């Protein structure tokens, strides 16, 4: 078993790591469109072993809907388009406002809302919003990422294996 590193990673296979100083509070993270497929819904059911008749057949909303927690992935995709932050997920606030159906295209957008230091580690918060084709808010999420598990006074000089940007798929 490899020994845990004492230095923070400066880069990885996806490029240079974003530093705390480079995080710009208020920065618009842009937007992208996510068309939810039946395969996405099935994959989420498999990953969470979460099966319900509403996820595979009819539901009170007139068609099958996705497990609501499918909404936990797009915020990470959004962040990865602008910043390369590995770290670990720390806090997750969310609100489910409308059901998500297969075939629906959602516009995912967001911005950086905060950064702070706690217990000698660096944290950043970003907001994510998903709107449907009619411009209605479908879900919102506010996430906090601990940028490095290693404390902030450790030099940033290593080369990591894993990076922040992730494949945009469930």
């Amino acid at each position, binding site marked *: *078993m*490899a*020994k*845990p*590193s*004492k230095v*923070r*990673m400066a880069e990885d296979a996806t490029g240079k790591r974003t530093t705390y100083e480079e995080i710009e509070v208020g920065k618009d993270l842009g937007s992208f469109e996510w068309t939810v497929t039946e395969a996405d819904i099935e994959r989420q059911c498999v*990953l*969470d*072993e*979460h099966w*319900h008749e*509403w996820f595979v057949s009819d*539901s*009170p*909303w007139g068609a099958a*809907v996705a*497990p*609501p*927690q499918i909404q*936990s*992935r797009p915020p990470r995709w959004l962040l990865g388009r602008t910043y390369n932050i*590995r*770290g*670990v*997920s*720390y*806090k*997750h*606030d*969310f*609100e*489910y*406002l*409308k*059901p998500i159906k297969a075939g629906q295209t959602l516009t995912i957008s967001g911005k950086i809302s905060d950064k702070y230091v706690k217990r000698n580690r660096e944290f950043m918060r970003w907001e994510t919003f998903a709107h449907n084709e009619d411009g209605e808010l479908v879900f919102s999420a506010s996430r906090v990422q601990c940028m*490095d*598990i*290693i404390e902030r006074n450790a030099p940033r000089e*290593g*080369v*990591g*294996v*894993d990076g922040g940007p*992730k*494949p945009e*798929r469930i």
Partner: protein
Amino acid sequence: MAIITEDTPIGYALPQVSRKLDVGLNQVKTNDGQLDTIHTNAEAAAREGLSEPIAIGSRIFGVIPRMMMICFDEGWVVGGKGSVVTRRPAGIDDLITAKGYVKSKTVETEDKLRIECEVWVETDKGVKVMVGQCSGLVARTAP
């Protein structure tokens, strides 16, 4: 059929939901394979300061919406809300269990109540790895 209603008492223990994690559930898929991540690869984890790979946060979280769905059904899919914090990592093959209880009730609209619950996920070693609050909506009879 949701099991929580406006008559459910404060302190009511939510039905627990358990699952066994495994390496496959912690893989991050690409179009032609999978990535080496801190969730599957010992070297990737070590370079980030970890002594071993850790479970993906959303896999740990996943038992909470299962529990909330049993409790609220429609009132979770539309109207579900939450705030959770990861306190400790979970191992990639841990047995995890979502637990919780009803904490409070607030009027959301004329015909809906919001039922707030304390929730957490613990491992089979009794370690609370995720804690927070989640809430769902239930029908409210006219006062």
